[in-house]
């Protein structure tokens, strides 16, 4: 019951070119619907996204194939053109170098996958994220004080989670724990914290005392 206009937006299913018939990737697409359609790309994953599928095994035998396919893609129709590459040969170095160069020249984004399942997952993800916002990768702050505190204290490499909890439980608050580093007997008081050896004390001092910008 597809509406006439739904075709261009491809509705809720992935459009698959009949060329892909027999590709094991299709069998692994489970959580999203797909249908065959006459399209220049191998997969259409949204109004502005399309993908070409390339197996390196095939590429080794027919190196020119992919360039023909890329040329056939309309330049303007798709904003994001993905070259979904299945790494199924052991000596992948040379073809990958070449593809890196190709991606730059021909405006395609190379995505590597190592199995048909992974390839299918990428296709599903592209389709289902068609309208998703990028907020998930814009960074989430840790939400609880404990997590934030541990994150903060463990920045110096030698300090671990146990030390962080020991530190704050000894001095009460972070402000105290920071200020104690500068006091006259600070090193000793910090050293008395469970598990804090000389090295940790030094790196903690350096971290909280160290100037943000190195002076000339």
């Amino acid at each position: 019951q597809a509406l006439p206009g739904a075709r261009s937006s491809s509705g809720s299913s992935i459009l698959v070119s009949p060329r892909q018939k027999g590709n094991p990737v299709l069998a692994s697409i489970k959580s999203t619907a797909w249908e065959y359609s006459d399209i220049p790309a191998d997969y259409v994953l949204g109004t502005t996204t399309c993908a070409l599928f390339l197996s390196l095994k095939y590429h080794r035998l027919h190196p020119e194939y992919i360039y023909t396919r890329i040329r056939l893609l309309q330049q303007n129709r798709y904003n994001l053109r993905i070259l979904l590459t299945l790494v199924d040969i052991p000596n992948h170095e040379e073809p990958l170098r070449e593809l890196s160069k190709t991606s730059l020249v021909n405006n395609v984004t190379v995505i590597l996958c190592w199995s048909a399942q992974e390839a299918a997952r990428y296709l599903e993800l592209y389709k289902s994220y068609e309208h998703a916002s990028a907020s998930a990768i814009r960074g989430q702050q840790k939400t609880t004080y404990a997590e934030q505190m541990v994150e903060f204290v463990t920045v110096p490499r030698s300090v671990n989670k146990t030390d962080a909890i020991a530190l704050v439980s000894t001095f009460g608050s972070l402000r105290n724990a920071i200020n104690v580093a500068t006091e006259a007997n600070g090193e000793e008081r910090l050293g008395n914290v469970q598990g804090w050896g000389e090295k940790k004390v030094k790196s903690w001092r350096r971290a909280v005392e160290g100037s943000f910008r190195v002076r000339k």
Partner: protein
Amino acid sequence: MSASSAPQPVKLSLPLVYQQKLFEELRKEDELVILARGLGLMRLITNLLHSYDAAGNNLIVVVNAEDRENAWIGEALAEHAAISMSPKARGLTVVNTDFTSVGTREKMYAQGGIFSITSRILVVDLLTNLLNPETITGMLVLHADRIVATSLEAFIFRIYRQKNKVGFLKAFSDNPDPFTVGFSPLATMMRNMFLRKASLWPRFHVQVAQSLEGKKKAEVIELEVPMTDSMREIQTAIMECVEISIHELKKENTGLEMEDWNLDSALTRNFDRMVRRQLEPNWHRVSWKTKQIAGDLTVLRGMLQSLLALDAVSFLQQLDTIHAAHKPAPGTTRQTESPWLFSDAAQTIFETARQRVYSSKQKAGPNSTIESLKPVLEEQPKWAVLADVLEEIDRDLYFEPAVRDDSNGTILVMCADTDTCRQLRDYLQTMHIRPRTAKKVEEVYDPEEDRPSGAFLMRRKLRNYLNWKREFAQVNATLFSENQKALSGAVDPRLPQARGRGGAPANKRRRVRGGGGGVGSNPSRHENGSIVQHFEKPNEVADLMSEIQITEDDAGGQAAEEIITFATADPLEDMDDYYQLYDMQDLVVIHAYEGDQDEHVLEEVKPKYIIMYEPDASFIRRVEVYRSSHNDRNVRVYFLYYGGSVEEQRYLSSVRREKDAFTKLIRERASMSIVMTTDSHGVEDPESAFLRTINTRIAGGGKLAKATAQPPRVVVDVREFRSSLPSLLHGRSMVIVPCMLTVGDYILSPNICVERKSVSDLISSFKDGRLYAQCETMFQHYRNPMLLIEFDQNKSFTLEPFADLSGSLRSVNPENAGANDLQSKIVLLTLAFPKLRIIWSSSPYETAEIFERLKALEEEPDPVAAVRAGLGEGESPEDGVNEGKGAVNGGSTFNMEAQEMLGKVPGVTPKNIRNITAEAENVREVANMEVEELGRLVGREAAGKIVEFFKKDVLEDYSG
């Protein structure tokens, strides 16, 4: 100080034969010296440096020295210069991040002398020709064992040897172990350093043995101290836990070489690291559990150590902390817990550790409480022995007055770390104070009646512990109740997700045990079988407190203690050394092992008696060297160790390992010498592909460039010099221009800008949103930004293990986008930046090839423009390009650590962090700011968050 027949008219301080031999060898030729630990490597180096320093007119670079070594070299050079009165000696100049101005450095280099330069600065200065490699007289390399083919130091030697074939290069190491791992490791290492000759000096070397085993031998008394029953019990239990963990590891990871994974090797120093290294190639493939166990092994080994080092109370306290940290976050399933916590042995550990401190008695006490706690306070067995030894020495001194010699008559006690130092000091100060004796303590020092004991100390510790524990329960509650509140809060975004997962129904979530009250005193277990932290009933604690309450005598004791402490206010006292007056004349010095620094301690203290509280192989050698170096100093060494303990085994195995390593090295050297002699100076040696390219293509270095086209050039962010890629790019005959870049890591052409991410970087920078911000700025300044996903050479080239291939609808639901796997985040990123190109590279070597290909037809990048990119209006590129000369300054850099910490503070965003760092000096200053002050910089809302974060008091803020 005997002046030897050195070729230079300088006075040396190398009294032993083997030292002089080695010195002469080093003066003659370039070589790699591997000296057994404790045989005085630093002394050799300083003497060598002095012989060059005295000659003057040199430019010598010391590479890879640590801060402490720098300090030592500096001091020693000054001392030498004063003794031999050499007018030309100029001492050591240390160049680290503090000296960042290009001009200053250039001037310093021009003057010559001896420099110790941080590798990252040195490589940049060599690349920018600020320090012309041809002007260098020679290089000295410390810690040669840390230099691998891709390290910064190897890069430095390559640049140096390319342009300078006559300067000397001498490498030193006192750690033979790394030279024995891998395939013909010694030869490889020497190739990295362009050296032909290796000189090995194990302890069993004939000359070393002769020098040390003359008639002036030190007298050694070994004292085997038995562990107490409960200590042994705990040790066995910990070992059992280690065994369980290893067993689990083996079960999880079949197909790895695991013959070495047994209890025996678990005791050697770096077993956990060894396991990690083996798992490394597929570290991201291994299950979460395996990673957890690898971490557990580190914890367990730490516990083994602290069982012997810490006193009973501190040990219990440590266990509490460990347990709290390993407690699973509420709402997680049992899978996330360490397997050893489920074992009976873990119960034994916690139980026995507690019983060493206090035990509950069933019988009715005088207060007729049904259950009361009694302090047990087991003392460390070594304490008593230490007291005995001190007494013996005392008697010794009294009955046979010392033969006049050069020693001070001081008693030197050596132990593992400053913590133990402190513990021993406390013990010695208080061992004669009796808690609650009937008589008043009049004579503090009366060994006849007053057997030394740590009771006073232990009682004080227990008091502190109980106080601490009360607070800790609260802290725990504050820290972890938040989670619970968040979980039950309807606004929490995780809740619908948790339900959405369809996993456990909400009521299965475990209850948090935070509060001190109500929890039974018997160690119970969570529903899932892990051990619950033990919190006593409040009334029991009160009992215990009253039991050990400060009595009048204790108070008296405290007063007495103050007097003693006052008496010890010695002008010599400093942070490291604790001096205490013991017999009014004699001094007891307690000191921690500090590697090479121990030599100084021996020389300065000139002890007559040495008590080694913990065994240390290299210190024994140092004593040997010390004894043999001085004709007239008698030393008696007492050597304390716990019989049948991990400590003993570890000591023996370390001695054996070193010996094996040297034997292996000697064998390898014997079979390789022919190969290396054909190699004139290393550079011509066609070792690896990238070295060959240097010779064929960059033969004339930069000079050839003017004749032909411009050589390929890459602008590299100075922070990237931590990775091996710049070195490899240089190896592929590209010109590396180090700059301080705000946007991107590598600029290949005016259009191409590359952000490099290793897989772990990628994950973390997705998590904190850094990558998104970086992509945004790259697109503002470049036409073709690229993201380089670089895999490790030794790790598997695949992202598949990160995928959630369950194939369920839920996992691709955009609602929880990015919550799960790496793939979904990459998808989001490419959707957000359709023009972003991704380079997949299986190793840094590959990356170098790809870079070369990418920039083949492009124009060369402009360093000045690259530095300017991303800097705001009016911000001068102060740290970037040094105008006028075009030289680029690399050393001046942001203090990454402090900035990173600030970035973690809630309320600080990548945008406002600049405002803060412009105004405040360091983290401490920010932490002490109030809302008004900060508000001006970042706005009130953010300021409120920041201040609250720093001020939050976990001891008081607990509510509910």
